[in-house]
């Protein structure tokens, strides 16, 4: 094929899904000349699965991305249809925001943001080849299917499910990307030739059905919160929720149809080799694995304001189309459903994330980064979080600056990346609150406090936002001081409130903080007697209340964070050959050489590295430091 040289850029981003978008925006905003490639210009920022952003732990990720200066939260706010804070009754650690969004609007806004971004070029092209050059300034070369050859300082791969994508619907199977797009068919071979270890994962999505064919009359309605809370710390006001969702259930008939046809599922028939996520199972998975369960819940969610497509959350399947139709029609409300797009499974290429470091750069390929599903994760939010980290680090590296490494003790993003690069992924990795051992500290409400200073340091937080942030933190401090030092008298009014909340009366003056510490008492309860309460944003009150009420538990977790940080301080140089450290067991030597942990804390989380091995490492480090002075 005739090729031509198409130009030099600092950074290439391959793929314009949720990972690619954050990577490209961050890189361009940090001043790097960036090119982002998409296989289909109309699929930029596509949400090929659920029409929603956030959810448990994912909502935390969106807030963290926003706090660092990423885009996902703002765009989700702009395209929002309905907001719900999940787990309200289960405690602040597990509160998670989820927004139903207009997926077409979301994609359009994101595409427009890329188009308007300075330093950024958005191009439709399938990358077919990657090659190392002899030019040390521009060591990476990408070739498109049209023969354009670009050179780059850094390349970020964010290919999602497009890379080697293969669709399965029953016995039908063909090469393809999500939502009827083309798959990237040649790039995978080029990556294998380069020496990356590529493997196959699979995921799936449910059907979309026509709204007017659904009978909503007997279905439960799920409404949004009033007032709806935004994702972004910068969004002032969202307005009102625009849609409702509906709930229905599968039944014995549904189950029977699926069981009768299970041999026609490509997964159970052995056609799919890729490993699917346990956490996002297809309906046939749920029925096979939880055989005694009589029914499964499904949510019917609108895909947008200007479309009649409805998403059947919880009904992912790879059974043949006619079997799908049969079982949808057994479900209450869907008896006459018209399926606009059938459910399908998709299998795709991804890498073993153990080959990445904490900046998401390949350990063996300087200047090459991975993000999103390519790294073995699942979910828009997980992808966006990694895209941001890869984009920021590629840019910082171009600029010769220190990398941005987020620790697991400080964020869900750090936890996500640490899990991927330390434990690897045996199935598509989904974020969950239970993955964080610090979840009372890493809350979605304080993501700005935890991460905006980092966003500021790297250059993604402008002056206006920074000043707003500082003011909010000051308000929180002041209000904390006020509630701890303001005494309320034991008036009848106060005691009436206490009794009405089923907690004991007081006979002497008591500080507001003392009362807030009672689980039964909220800020709002005390407003009639708290006469001098300043007029502050509800997010300020929320944080003060949590900090006061959960002080003892937060302290416990902070102690753990501190312990972890001590171990993080013990750096392990990346050029250690662990085979040469006597005393380490063979398995530990191999795992350590593979993963190359940054410090003792990360090493201690590697499976196959025992406490005894860790002691040997500490001793080795100490000896090394004594011997070599600055070394290590």
């Amino acid at each position, binding site marked *: 094929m005739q090729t031509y040289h198409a130009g030099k850029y600092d950074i290439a981003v391959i793929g314009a899904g949720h990972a690619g978008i954050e990577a490209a925006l961050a890189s361009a905003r940090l001043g790097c000349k960036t090119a982002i490639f998409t296989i289909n210009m109309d699929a930029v920022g596509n949400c090929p699965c659920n029409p929603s952003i956030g959810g*448990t*732990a994912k909502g935390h990720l969106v807030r963290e991305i926003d706090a660092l200066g990423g885009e996902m939260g703002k765009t989700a706010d702009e395209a929002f249809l309905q907001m719900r804070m*999940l*787990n309200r*009754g*289960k*405690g*602040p*650690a*597990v509160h998670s925001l989820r927004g139903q969004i207009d997926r077409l609007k979301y994609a359009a806004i994101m595409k427009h943001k890329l188009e308007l971004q300075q330093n950024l070029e958005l191009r439709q092209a399938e990358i077919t080849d990657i090659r190392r050059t002899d030019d040390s300034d521009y060591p990476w070369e990408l070739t498109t299917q049209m023969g354009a050859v670009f050179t780059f300082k850094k390349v970020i791969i964010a290919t999602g499910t497009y890379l080697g994508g293969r669709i399965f619907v029953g016995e039908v199977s063909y090469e393809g990307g999500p939502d009827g797009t083309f798959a990237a068919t040649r790039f995978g071979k080029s990556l294998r030739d380069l020496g990356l270890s590529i493997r196959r994962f699979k995921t799936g999505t449910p059907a979309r059905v026509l709204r007017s064919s659904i009978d909503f009359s007997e279905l439960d309605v799920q409404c949004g919160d009033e007032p709806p809370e935004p994702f972004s710390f910068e969004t002032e006001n969202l307005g009102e929720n625009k849609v409702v969702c509906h709930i229905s259930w599968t039944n014995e008939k549904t189950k029977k149809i699926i069981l009768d046809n299970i041999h026609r599922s490509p997964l159970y028939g052995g056609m799919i080799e890729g490993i699917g996520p346990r956490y996002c199972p297809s309906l046939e998975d749920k029925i096979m694995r939880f055989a005694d369960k009589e029914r*499964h*819940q499904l*949510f019917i969610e609108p895909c947008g304001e200007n479309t009649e497509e409805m998403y059947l959350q919880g009904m992912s399947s790879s059974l043949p189309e006619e079997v799908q139709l049969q079982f949808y029609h057994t479900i209450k409300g869907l008896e006459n459903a018209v399926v606009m797009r059938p459910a399908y499974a998709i299998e795709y290429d991804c890498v073993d994330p153990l080959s990445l470091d904490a900046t998401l750069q390949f350990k063996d390929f300087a200047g090459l980064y991975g993000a999103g599903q390519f790294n073995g994760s699942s979910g828009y939010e997980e992808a966006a979080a990694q895209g941001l980290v890869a984009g920021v680090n590629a840019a910082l590296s171009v600029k010769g600056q220190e990398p941005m490494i987020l620790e697991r003790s400080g964020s869900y993003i750090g936890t996500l990346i640490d899990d991927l690069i330390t434990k690897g992924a045996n199935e598509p990795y989904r974020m*969950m*609150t*239970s993955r964080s*051992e610090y*979840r*009372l500290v890493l809350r979605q409400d304080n993501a700005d406090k935890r991460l905006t200073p980092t966003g500021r340091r790297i250059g993604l937080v402008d002056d206006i936002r920074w000043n707003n942030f500082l003011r909010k933190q000051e308000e929180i401090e002041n209000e904390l001081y006020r509630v701890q030092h303001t005494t309320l008298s034991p008036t009848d009014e106060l005691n009436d409130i206490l009794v009405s909340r089923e907690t004991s009366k007081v006979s002497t003056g008591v500080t507001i903080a003392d009362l807030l510490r*009672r*689980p*039964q008492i909220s800020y709002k309860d005390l407003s009639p007697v708290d006469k001098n309460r300043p007029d502050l944003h509800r997010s300020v009150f929320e944080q003060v209340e949590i900090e006061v009420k*959960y002080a003892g*538990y937060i302290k*416990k*977790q902070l102690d*753990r964070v*501190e*312990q*972890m940080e*001590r*171990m993080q301080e013990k750096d392990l140089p990346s050029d250690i050959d662990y085979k040469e450290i*006597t*005393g*380490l*067991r063979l398995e530990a030597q191999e795992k350590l050489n593979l993963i190359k942990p940054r410090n*003792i*804390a990360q090493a*201690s*989380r590697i*499976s196959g*590295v*025992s*406490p*005894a*091995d*860790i*002691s*040997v490492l*500490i*001793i*080795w480090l*100490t*000896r090394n430091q*004594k*011997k070599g002075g600055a070394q290590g």
Partner: protein
Amino acid sequence: MSEKTIAAISTAQGQGGIGIIRISGEKAIEIADKVFVAASGKRLEALEGYRASYGKVMENNEMLDEVVAIVYRAPKSFTGEDVVELCCHGGLYVTRSVLRVVLENGAVLAEPGEFTKRAFLNGKMDLSEAQAVMDIISAQSRQAVRCAVSTRTGALKKRIDDIKNDLVSLAGHLCAWADFPEEDIPEVTEDAITEILETAKEKITKLLSEYETGQAVIHGIDTVIAGRPNVGKSTLMNLLSGFDKSIVTEIAGTTRDVVEETVIVGDVTLRLCDTAGIRDTDNPVEKIGVDRTKERLSTCSLVLAVFDSSQELTDEDIKLIESLEDVPSIAIINKTDLERKLDINTISKKIKHIVYISAINGDGKQELTDAIAEVSGTKNFDPCAGILSGERQRAAAQKAQNSVIEAHNTLSSGYSFDAVTVCVEDAIDALLELTGENVSDAVVDDVFHSFCVGK
């Protein structure tokens, strides 16, 4: 340096001339000042390094022992950190009590080898010693693997896994319920959580109490023989000694340690001490004896209260009975060969276990043996059942217990489940630490527990 401040008894435990409690770490001096009151009134923080101070270790305004405190300032100490050594008068009981007070005031119990480890990490050991440390650790990890498959460790692990699995499934359920709010996961009820926590608490309590029993089996039970003069205490002493004459040993006691004899009764070792009777007296010398008896009665692990069957209860007997209400005790009715005048009912109201003996013809030996086994908990004690071994394991079990109790309190005071989950996870961590499976940060400190070099 932000490591925890550690403390331990650093002399061989037993009947040495003195016992030293060593405290090392950032807060060593601060903690020592909380428990130590110098005769001069001068606080330890006012002292330079290598200075000693004479005074008392206090607990709740009561003196535990007279000690000499020696202050070492970092880096000039064994560990390279601030160190305080409290030199007590020896005797297991006193030394342990002082350690307990130190731990209650903010120090954590040092792992075996931890002082050495700190000495090493703070550059107090040379390179050849460092190599030796590494060799020992690698050898020990192989040994640990062998130990793990031994029956006894296996039995303990099974018991702990049993507790842990319940808590893990509770935590798992709570997490799933929080992580998948719309997946139709059955709600976790407060009652269900309470039940699991209570079961876990019971099981850990059992582990802990068996540890105490095990300690009693190994080290002997502090036993007081009490009773007014001439009821037959010395006869009883002789009777007990007669169980196995060859085992009777003289203990090199100190002025404080009143242990006079160690005897083995059945499977149980008793460390016996005789006491003065309890009665009101104006005689200053006798009063000291009476006070000491009262103190002994409140601190020992078993009281053998001796009464004379042939006489009516005296005021003194009644005072003794009343003082034994919360103390593990056995009433021994002596002189059953004579005509009974004693009112047994008054005794049996307060003391559950009553044994009749006649020291002269040897009646009641077996009954006494059985009663001792029952009261001391050794009757149903199976050393192969998997018991905690060593203070490190006990401390981890205690930590798990505390977290389970905290989870329970958190739940019952109305906090949200995420706070409960945090406590449950702490408990699981402590149990994992106990079985050596936890590769978390806390365990890094833990690894050094079994080696001791460079001293």
